[in-house]
């Protein structure tokens, strides 16, 4: 099972599910539901914070939170 913290900068992926309901609730309220495409635009120094581009908004996420998002890489 691949999670968002495992993909490299510049790669695209698609949200499959969430490992914790709390993060699921938060992201879904922001319109990020399973199936939503995303791209890791960049990571901060030490790669501790992620800058993620979704189709309609960009989010800052911590690595711990990225690890809770199950994704499938785009082929």
């Amino acid at each position: 099972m691949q999670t968002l913290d495992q993909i490299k900068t510049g790669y695209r992926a698609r949200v499959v599910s969430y490992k914790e309901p709390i993060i699921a609730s938060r992201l879904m309220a922001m319109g990020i539901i399973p199936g939503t495409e995303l791209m890791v635009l960049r990571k901060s120094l030490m790669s501790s914070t992620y800058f993620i581009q979704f189709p309609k908004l960009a989010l800052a996420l911590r690595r711990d939170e990225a690890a809770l998002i199950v994704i499938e890489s785009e082929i």
Partner: protein
Amino acid sequence: MSFSKYQVALSGNPNVGKSSVFNLLTGLHQTVGNFPGVTVDRKSGVFQLGQLGKVSIIDLPGLYSLFPSSEDEKVVVDVLMRGVNDSSIDIVGYIVDANDLERNLLLFTQIRDLGYKMVVGVNMLDTALANGLQIDLQGLSLSFGVPFVGINGRTGEGIEEFKNSLEHEIFNQATKCSYQFSDNEEQIAKDVNSIIQFDSQYIALLLAHQYKRSPLLKDTQKEFIATLIKKYSFNSIDIQLDEMMKRYQMITPLVQKSSSHIPMEMDSLTRKIDKILTHRIFGLVFFIGLMLLVFQAIFSWAEKPMEWIEGGFVGLNQIISGIVPDGWFQRLLTDGIVSGLSGVLVFIPQIAILFFLVSILEESGYMARVVYMMDSFMRRFGLNGRSVVSLISGGACAIPAIMSTRTISNWKERLTTIMVTPLISCSARIPIFAILIAIAIPAEKVGGWISLQALVFMGLYVLGTGTALIVAWVFHKILKTEERSFLVMELPRYQMPQWRGVFYNVWEKVKVFIIEAGRVIFFISILLWFMASYGPKKSMDAARKKAQQEYAVSQEISLTQLTKSYELEASYAGIAGRMIEPLIRPLGYDWKIGIALLTSFAAREIFVGTMATIYAVGDDNNTTLLKERLQEATFSGSNKKVFTVGTSISLMIFYLFAMQCMSTVAVVRRETKSLKWPAIQMLYMGVLAYVGGWIAASIF
């Protein structure tokens, strides 16, 4: 604002331009307060709504759904649930970003299902159109059963139509709840409704989700709902997720029907700017540079206006001295009240400039990037990415810095920032450091080119900042919070700041400062003036006589200066200074320094002025003379010098760490809504100051 009959609430997701709509509607007829019991900004105002006359409006903080995940969001959800229940809110104006309707409409359908009448203001239609996105407002109005009105929060276009719709809808029936309850949801909502009478089944369902913390319920009702949860094996969080999915399944086809579908990415300009400004290395360099500029601006831009304010009060004092006859009343006015007022108002330029710059950073969307870049570093100390801005502002003045922590939504991180910000060396400490460094540190060059005095000065700043971070870490370890620290933060599109909003923000902050800090420092300076001007009659008379005798021997120092000096020694402040001498003796201070510690208790910058009075320098600004007198000073009854290197460094450390600023205490009290936190803060800073001063006195 209780005079108006109708109450409108503005709601919507964050970053949709809600505040600019609010500003357009109310203009300057707005106030910022707090929701009861919490320090979430409660912006409210009044505006003219057609035939209805003046109506009240409240700008609710941005929210993504009625399932709150932070303390702030809980407050807003409670306001909305209560508002429909007791009819304290008549209608909800809901603002959406035309570029992202689906996500925006989730909360809309939830609020509508609470039973509210609503009007939707579709903002940013112009940028949507520029992106090739066509939106059929009429189609949306038909699909969702409430009016959708195109508005432009920047130009004000469409605001009149928005108001007309509000005026019209306020007398209409609210649309029926459209959410399809599952069997499980239906059962529990029905049973909840059997004990609490709500008009809307959806409120009952939300209470089943949030009963544990809801202020709408009594304890017995909470217990009853708890049994229902067990009875129906109601899995709250999964049911919330299902609800959101069902809502999206309903919203998406309706939105697609009424808008041209285009795959949208964030606009390319924002992405280009971000490539540089959020670069892992260059982004940080830029940010640090920008903060130095802000810091510099607070100092240099404020310098002239501060001089004008001080000059104005000096002039006022002269006018008062001309009109009011000599005596205690004149001195109360000039030395007490006017000086106290001057001490407060002189900070206005710095506060205004700081909030002007911070508002621009906030409104342009840059602040969210700062959090992205600084979050991990600051989190190690229990702080937040936004804490950086407060800490840097603290270098000018702790008061606006503490007020600027409102943008930190996590309470623990915000409190920690508030607690440590006064440790950052502020501008009021500079004159104290300047005179003490001049006394204790020789004007030598280290390694031939670095001034030793400048090095010590810089060392004090580093020491203050380092201590602030360490103390933050300690608080981080001690403070417990239920609130889990999350960073799931939107990075909005960059946009030009709206000057109207910036102006209102600056105005509001200055107002709060004058009211909150002003009244405290005002009363304390009158009290301190009294203590420093009056004493037991016998010793005051003796002091005057002593001054005359000394003047008769040598006219080196003027009689007024000598009298003032001896009077201060004999005054209640002087007595108190002697009383605390045993306490401060280990730090190398005598009772004269004790007097200055006491008089500068409310505002540390008083220190230099008091020393000038005690040593009969006369002119506060004559630092060369003051320096000489201080260097000659000895402990009473001995030849031992008071201002040794040890004492001077000890005093600098003391003023670096000690609170000695009642305006800050007042603002902390306001921002934490408690007496406990300012008390703890004064205590820990006092202990640091004493211990630090003692260590310095022992080493040097």
